């Protein structure tokens, strides 16, 4: 069992950061679900709300950064506390970028909803489902200090990459067969790329969890 600090206030300050990160993680999950729903169900109003929601993610980013800076300045953390704060700084950046990608998906959904559908979405929702799962599991691994779950997230990224490549090939075929689809296909392609990037950000978080738990930096080591 992990010991508490002598200073209860210090424990409280670290807990605030942990809770804020989870709040931010929960919000980007919702954002991704809504962005995909706006695309699949052609719900432009939901797309608009999702785009507007991004400012909440940005505010949380600044708030968490501020808490982390204060702990650094006042506590001079060491060991696992230092790793935690370093990790928090990086996770918050990844979560903020996931928020940006979700807003980008919602923007493409808004544009695509104004045109006839290109094709039924089959692989894209699967890919988004995986990416959402990865974000959720990366945050769960962070909360529980579960490095095995974090390793699983890193491995799942390969599957999302494969789906993305598959979608790219399919879209290329569409564009070759009917050049009038190019504009819409490029937008769908962008959505696919956004989901792939979200999975990459989840992987970044998972890699940092492994560093926090094991003190071992595995970035750029998983092929």
């Amino acid at each position: 069992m992990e010991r508490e600090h002598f200073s209860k206030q210090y424990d409280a300050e670290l807990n605030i950061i942990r809770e804020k990160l989870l709040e931010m993680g929960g919000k980007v999950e919702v954002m991704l679900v809504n962005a995909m729903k706006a695309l699949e169900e052609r719900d432009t109003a939901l797309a608009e709300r999702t785009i507007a929601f991004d400012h909440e993610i940005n505010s949380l980013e600044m708030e968490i950064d501020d808490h982390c800076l204060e702990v650094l300045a006042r506590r001079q953390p060491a060991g696992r506390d230092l790793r935690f704060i370093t990790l928090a700084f990086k996770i918050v950046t990844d979560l903020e970028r996931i928020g940006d990608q979700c807003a980008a998906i919602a923007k493409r959904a808004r544009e695509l909803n104004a045109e006839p559908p290109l094709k039924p979405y089959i692989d894209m929702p699967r890919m988004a489902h995986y990416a959402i799962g990865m974000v959720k599991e990366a945050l769960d691994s962070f909360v529980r200090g579960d490095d095995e779950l974090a390793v699983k997230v890193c491995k799942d990224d390969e599957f999302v990459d494969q789906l993305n490549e598959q979608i790219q090939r399919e879209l290329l075929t569409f564009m070759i067969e009917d050049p009038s689809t190019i504009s819409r296909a490029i937008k769908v392609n962008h959505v696919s790329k956004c989901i792939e990037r979200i999975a990459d950000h989840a992987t970044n978080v998972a890699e940092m969890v492994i560093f926090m738990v094991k003190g071992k930096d595995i970035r750029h080591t998983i092929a």
Partner: protein
Amino acid sequence: MNSKVKLDDLNVHFGGTHAVKGVDIDFPANSVTAIIGPSGCGKSTVLRAINRMHDMTPGAQVSGRILLDDTDIYGRGIDPVAIRRKIGMVFQKPNPFPAMSIYDNVIAGYKLNGRTRRDEADEIVESSLQRVALWDEVKDRLKSNAMELSGGQQQRLCIARTIAVRPEVILMDEPASALDPLSTLKIEELIEELKERYTIIIVTHNMQQAARVSDVTAFFYLGELIECGVTKKLFTTPDKKQTEDYITGRFG
């Protein structure tokens, strides 16, 4: 890195108390090693064993070996005074000789080696004071009483007195704990400069100070060496849970 001082199964007993238990450490040459740990962990006891200060403590018993280069400083026929010339010590509280001038304080240890020519003494005083960055502050009042200096200046004077005898190793027992933050920073900067010429071993309660000034850190607990390693690693990803709990303020 070459080892300058090596502890080999060092044990220190005070009567029935086993204060230091089978410690093995290599202190690399021309580097700063910090010894950290909670009160009573044996860190100052280890430091004092390195220049044979326990010789004069009734009931103290030191066993194992302490090698300075390849010489066991507790070996047969080794003169402890000669050892203390090679291994200088700076204490927690500045301790200039109260009845002496700044000049005489610096040269006091060197004079014990025998008669010294005036020009030679002048040169030693100036270079020692320059090396501790005190020369410019005191060059116009070398004959003033050392007690007129501030606490931080007195501590730098004591370090100048230590290096005037040209030691190879400097032991520091919480050298900045009685000083204000600015004087502390000056001492820390000085430690960084001194390591080019000397091997420095510092005991400190201040973990941030250990992290700032040392190349290697050794963590002691209840008389045992728990972990010794490169400072950056020990303060970011220590190998032992006890070390991690101590440096993060979870016990101590």
